[in-house]
């Protein structure tokens, strides 16, 4: 299976987002870089709005994630509730 990944700038808010990703994708691996945090996963990675909201303690629009986003790889399937990275083809 191919790897998908998503990389963020390391900010206070991103810590909650990454925590949420790790909870929803237990098999994912974190790669901490200076100023950047990258999450790798085999085949599929999901960011769920409800989990991020719980970690962040406030309402969250998945679009807010893009403020912190550096890069990603995988085909995106996004709606209001979740953001899924996977190789569909």
């Amino acid at each position, binding site marked *: 299976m191919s790897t998908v990944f998503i990389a963020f700038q390391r900010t*206070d808010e991103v*810590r*909650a987002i990454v925590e949420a990703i790790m909870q929803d994708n237990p098999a994912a691996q974190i790669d901490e*870089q*200076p100023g950047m945090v990258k999450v790798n996963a085999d085949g599929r990675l999901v960011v769920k709005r409800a989990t991020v909201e*719980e970690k*962040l*303690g*406030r309402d969250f629009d998945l679009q807010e994630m893009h403020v912190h986003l550096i890069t990603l790889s995988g085909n995106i399937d996004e709606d209001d509730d979740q953001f899924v990275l996977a190789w569909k083809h």
Partner: protein
Amino acid sequence: MQIDLRTVSITPLRQTFDHVAKRLGGDKPASRYQEGTLDVQAKTNYHYRPTWDPAHKIFDETRTAIKMKDWYAFKDPRQFYYGSWTQARARLQETAEGDIEFVESRGLASNLSAAVRKLALELYVPLRHVEWGANMNNASICAYGFGTAITAPAQFQGMDRLGSAQYLSRLGLLLGGPDDLAAAKNAWLNAPAWQELRRYVEDTFVLSDWFELYVAQNLALDGLMFPLLFKRVDDHLTSQAGPTVSMLTRFQADWFVDASKWVDATIKTAAAESAENKAQLEAWTRAWTARAAKALQPVVAMALGDAAAGAMEEAMTQFKARCAKAGLSV
């Protein structure tokens, strides 16, 4: 000349403070909320007891009947520390100001029928005294409570209520004038419909158990008052005269949803701690809810007339469902 770029990774020697790391179970990066909350209140090296209350220490766990093994078990799901609280409130205020500005600029207030305007003034303006009472009570919870995890959000809650009182004054000045504020104060002091509620507020001022005060104010009174006056009565006014008044009380309606998250979490944590806590909380909730319902009944009747009894019953059912979710059967 050749320049080599090289990445140097500098890892911090420690991720957070030792006392925070101890609670997180290891040296992990902590959020601002955690660093600004956990074990912040001083506990040791108090040599002297306060002269005004020699039976207790300055910060004392025994000022309430509620017992907790760890007072930092309380969590604010909104994760408010001073910074995040001011940001959240600034957002709320921006929306509220926008709505008030809209009502002003379109002259919506002057289009209200005399009956609706009178009702809105008589109903919402005296409430600023209730809001001020809630400010005092939450400040008292902060002063006598134990542990930053509950005292800090209580202080935020108190300041929110002061803001709410100010918005009610704005409503009064927008729909009426300074005379209406004076009339509302007079009604609060003398009109029969308000006396039971005034008694409730004044009785809570002298409660010495701060957790009982928390239940009486933040759970029982607010839990009935906001759904009834800022939702049920608000719907009634909107159906009669459009959303003008609703726009002026937007702050309260939005704020209550936000504050309830914290109140629910606090009650849930305290009730889950022990059977004694649960029984104590249930007894307090039952007693204060009955009084709150009695106090609000004449006020709701002012707005809804015959429909008031049904509205009270409905609010009570919802309130009981909310308590059940937090682990209290009342």
